[in-house]
């Protein structure tokens, strides 16, 4: 009987194994979500911010303010009287009305330019997010340049691209905007090799230098730096209130407000990162998802911000990855930050039962991992049947990068998906912590 039972044991084991799904991928990574992880984060911040930020101007206020702002451009006594009238008003209320005018579809070109010029001359930090958003829609070149100048005065480089575009346009296309953009360059941060206005070529090169630093670090400076920068900060109550209002748009069902918010938040100084990490714990799936996605779109500048400020991305992602519904987005954000120290958090997800999570983990590792990921990489590539085409190619590229082996894509991998991963491989050279020459 003992002998018969022993003979039956493999059969019993086989029968039991039939209950499992094929290709059991092995132990799942530990993923304990704290009971209080999800919170009404946005609602709490909006309530706290209710006393701060910019008031919404009413249509009557917009109609009342428009002639005063337009009168500023008339010159002479009319302009002086208008200025005197406007300067008696509350600056925040006036800025809100000027922004409202600038944002309204029906505002005419003259009033639009006058509103932008007022905001440039009287920059209010809380207006930074909505000014940045204007650049997504503003068609009038002069008004767009005034917005970019206002942003420069507010230590934001969100308008640098717009200035460069206006300056690069062919002469004669919009000379007034070009002249205003050229005059804006004296607002750029100084550099020992640059004298503002000395010659256009030098101005242009300096603009490109500052733009490169902005794109790399979201700091308005003429040289890269790994030192903390007071310009990172967005914690002033009025500005933070406006940032939270922008984050609240991530919950929208229509995508337009979501896209507007992502446009702004990815162009803000990196002080928005702690706010976005807080939003990644919101009760709304959409807020969590898009907050993480926004961090991913900011990418390496967020990683550099964490390095120079000591912001604990490791702790954040350690917890965020425990949230199953947004794990893929957390992995994408982790990888995009480009910090090698984060890679050990992503590697265990190569063993996930979810193809989507394995793909996201492989992509994250391609973007941030170093040689310490080789063991996980080899283990995953040893079971290629568990890898999607995308994950297989991402890991293949990473191994090529780390070990010099040739990378191979499966024939079924879409060309566009291959290109995306090839681009990420190229971007590894720009990861935070990688040496960079001054522009």
């Amino acid at each position, binding site marked *: 009987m003992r002998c018969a039972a022993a003979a039956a044991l493999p059969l019993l084991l086989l029968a039991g194994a039939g209950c499992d*799904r094929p290709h059991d991928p092995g132990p799942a990574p530990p993923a304990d979500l704290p009971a209080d992880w999800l919170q009404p984060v946005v609602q709490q911040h909006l309530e706290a911010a209710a006393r701060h930020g910019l008031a919404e101007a009413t249509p009557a206020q917009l109609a009342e303010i428009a002639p005063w702002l337009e009168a500023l451009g008339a010159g002479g006594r009319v302009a002086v009287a208008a200025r005197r009238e406007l300067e008696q008003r509350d600056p925040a209320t006036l800025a809100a009305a000027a922004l409202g005018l600038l944002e309204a579809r029906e505002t005419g070109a003259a009033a639009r330019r006058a509103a932008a010029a007022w905001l440039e001359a009287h920059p209010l930090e809380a207006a930074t997010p909505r000014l940045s958003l204007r650049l997504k829609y503003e*068609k009038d070149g002069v008004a767009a340049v005034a917005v970019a100048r206002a942003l420069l005065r507010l230590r934001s480089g969100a308008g640098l691209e717009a200035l460069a575009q206006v300056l690069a346009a062919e002469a004669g296309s919009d000379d007034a905007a070009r002249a205003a953009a050229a005059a804006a360059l004296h607002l750029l941060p100084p550099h020992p090799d640059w004298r503002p206005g000395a010659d256009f070529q030098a101005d242009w090169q300096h603009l490109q230098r500052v733009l490169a630093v902005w794109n790399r670090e979201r700091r308005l400076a003429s040289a890269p730096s790994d030192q903390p920068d007071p310009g990172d900060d967005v914690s002033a109550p009025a500005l933070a209130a406006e940032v939270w209002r922008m984050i609240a748009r991530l919950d929208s069902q229509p995508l337009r407000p979501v*896209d507007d918010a992502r446009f702004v938040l990815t162009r803000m100084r990196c002080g928005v990162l702690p706010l976005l990490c807080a939003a990644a714990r919101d009760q709304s799936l959409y807020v969590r998802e898009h907050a993480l996605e926004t961090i991913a779109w900011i990418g390496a500048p967020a990683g550099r911000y964490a390095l120079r400020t000591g912001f604990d991305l490791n702790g954040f992602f350690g917890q965020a990855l425990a949230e199953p519904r947004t794990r893929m987005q957390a992995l994408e954000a982790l990888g995009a930050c480009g910090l090698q120290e984060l890679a050990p958090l992503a590697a265990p997800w190569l063993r996930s039962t979810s193809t989507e999570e394995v793909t996201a983990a492989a992509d994250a590792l391609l973007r941030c991992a170093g040689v310490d990921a080789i063991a996980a990489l080899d283990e995953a590539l040893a079971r290629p049947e568990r890898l999607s085409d*995308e994950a297989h190619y991402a890991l293949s590229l990473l191994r090529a990068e780390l070990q010099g082996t040739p990378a191979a894509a499966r024939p079924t991998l879409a060309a*566009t998906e291959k290109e995306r991963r090839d681009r990420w491989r190229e971007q590894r050279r720009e990861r935070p912590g990688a040496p960079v020459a001054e522009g």
Partner: protein
Amino acid sequence: MLAALGLLVLVLLLRPARSEPATSWISSRQCLECHPGVAAEWRESHHAFAYENPEVRQLSNDFRNEECLACHAPRPVLGFAPGERVLERASDRALGVDCLACHALPDAGVATGNPQPDASAPCRPRYEPRMRDVSHCASCHNQHGTVDQWRAAPEEFEGRKLKGDGCLHCHMPDAVRPDGAAGRDHRFRASHDLAQLQAAARIEGGWSAEGPWVSVTNFGAAHNFPTDERSRAADVQVRWRGAEGEPGPWQHVHRFRDPYRDEVDLTNTQLPAGQTWRRTLAAAPGARAGEARLLYRTNPFQADDEAREIGRVSLQP
């Protein structure tokens, strides 16, 4: 040995019944193996083409405008509340709006709109009423208001039922495949299909005492014409014939379109369901006759010779 076999039989009999699918559904490629008829239809559809479509890639800046990804490579819609928008997936994006996008259940099972599913099929399909409801399509197709337009449309127009029983009525009609299998047509015919366009809108015209006139009626689309993406446009054009009978160049008369938000000088001119747009025209000097046509463009910059001509009408006194 017999005892062991008996024990094995007992274990097999006492095993919990397998209510879960026979395998795990990780890619729509698995579905295509057992459903070649549906697969062939789907491959013809713009759902299959949603991610690779070069026109979409151009308009979305090669998906650098990642907002477009959610609907062009979505996660399973059934993982979200009815009608709420979807989010994008990480793998198999090239399959666009694939089988799992519409059929995958959150518990890894497979949903069907068939009230009597074949429970013996390897994927163990389960009837999900939401599959037949407009909310299932709304997750993507209401981003530009199409489902809201359908809800606001009249039930009937010109004595015939207009709204049908939802999106499926026009876009997934009943179909019998070459192998005899019945189901719903997975080609999702819509604005890329001329017959579908002609079943939605018609152009009419003539020459009355006030002069030549032209009209367009949305008689068959139970939503605006054109609808959905703001890149869609339909144009009315006219050309005149003089005494010699030679036609002059086509001239623009009217555009039906919902503009992008940054096109601040334009308003929404889409034609709601069951409504007619009509205009009296000023004929060119010396014109004895003319003709008008209705063109459909999948993007507003599409050239005339690439647009689809829905209809043409002659204008004669």
